């Protein structure tokens, strides 16, 4: 599995990170190096092995259905780059 500059451009787009044209080739090279290295996992026999998603053995803890939050508009907006009238804003989305 080898990554080319088009693949880098595609995953960069998926990750919403602007990557300058001129860096695509270099990044592809780096990613290929890393991917070739992690490729060695394919040699491990994992037949019948369950994937481990957490180091915690127990079940999901549950919370009571109570209102304990909200009503913190000032906190919410304190760090907002461009708040208007109690809203966060983004460049206009045309649908």
């Amino acid at each position, binding site marked *: 599995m080898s990554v080319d500059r088009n693949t880098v451009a595609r995953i960069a787009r*998926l990750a919403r990170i602007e990557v300058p044209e001129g860096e695509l080739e270099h990044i592809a090279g780096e*990613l290929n190096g*890393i991917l070739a290295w992690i490729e060695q996992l*394919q040699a491990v026999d994992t037949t019948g*092995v369950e994937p*481990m998603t957490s*180091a*915690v053995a127990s079940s999901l803890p549950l919370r009571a259905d109570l209102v304990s939050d909200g009503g913190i508009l000032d906190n919410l907006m304190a760090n907002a780059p461009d708040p208007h009238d109690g809203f*966060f804003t983004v460049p206009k989305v045309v649908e």
Partner: protein
Amino acid sequence: MSALTDLSLADALTGLAAKDFSARELATAHVEAVAAASTLNAFVVETPERALADAEASDARRARGEALPLDGIPLAIKDLFCTKGIRTTAASRILGDFTPTYESTVTSQLWRDGAVMLGKLNLDEFAMGSSNETSAFGPVKNPWRRTGDTAVLVPGGSSGGSAAAVAARLCLGATGTDTGGSIRQPAAFTGIVGIKPTYGRCSRWGIVAFASSLDQAGPMTRTVTDAALMLRSMAGHDPKDSTSANRAVPDYTKALTGDVRGLKIGIPKEYRIEGVPAEIGRLWEQGIEWLKAAGAEIREISLPHTSQSLPTYYIVAPAEASSNLARYDGVRFGARQPGRTLPEMYEKTRGAGFGREVRRRILIGTYVLSAGYYDAYYLKAQKVRSLIARDFTEAYKEVDAILAPATPSAAFAAGEKSADPLAMYLNDVFTVTANLAGLPALAVPAGLNSQGLPLGLQVIGRAFDEETVLRIGHVIEKAAAFTARPDNWWRV
């Protein structure tokens, strides 16, 4: 220079209790040391006023006879912990001037127990790195230098600011976080103690997430006793973190009995890795001898999937990171770059906001999770992770703890590995296994190499058995009698 900064955390508590000095005096000495050490670049934000205010409040409590467990102890906080009213950066441009309106659970417990806040410590951007060279605020310098050489060395990473600050006597202890070795590797590079507790021991609430299934906070201090004291305040169940363990927190200092007789210590044969300098092997042998002499039983064990740990880690961690870092989009907080459309705003904000290493890991993580590759990479890695954890389960049927080197080398020079991501990733070779398996692991300074740089040993324990880990670390600490310290070349 004031001797107050040379005290251990435990001795400082004794001195405060005996009224040998006040918390204000202790804080002032540390505030001055911080101010004089800007060359090291260990701090991102200094909070001297807060430190003095905290110290005065501490003195008042002590005068009322209401002293708390860490009352008056000056600490510094890795800038990955959200601190209310104090800028929190994760050493990334993307967070801009983000100032949380909330306090992480771990730090709030330190303040609850009377600790004094000195400031926020530099780190690798989003804790991704092993040399503290990926910080948006510039690299941290290791207080240690090779004998007769003024070349700047890295302090390790990602908790490089924490390690440097503790080693340089700028604070009595610091918080760190460890996702693949980010507490233990810098602790080893700077001759201090660092423990990554069992996954779930310390709440992750309010800590900027890197890889959620691996991240764990822990203390970095100059002695094992200090680590035990600090961990007790940091640990504990938090209902706000679904992965937090609902278990009582013991008084870890009680575990430091000095007695390891009859304990079975495993020596994993797979940790003898080709290409690792002989001095590392010699240090390991020395550690084995110390524990044997103290009455422990040494057994060779096998952790067959050790060599798969790093590749597994470098799939799991970037995958989780690629998702965890999606929230940095310039909409609700952080530095936004203008864009005509929403996707353009996102791409410019994230393109400009993330550094190269973070970008590299997000891209890798995005790729391994993407359609068509998930099974081959992510799912495969999760299965191998099961095998790695199973190796430890098997080993712990025979032994009580495992002794290993902390790092494959001593601190290296700034710039030496930053151009080669793979060479940098190999730094974590001895540490990632404990993260993948969720186990507690401690780095303790054990000696100097031929160039006068500190080296550390690592003790890995059973889940939630930090006590045995600390007990063994304490015995190594005594046997090693590690008293070396960096000279104060950085002081202005």
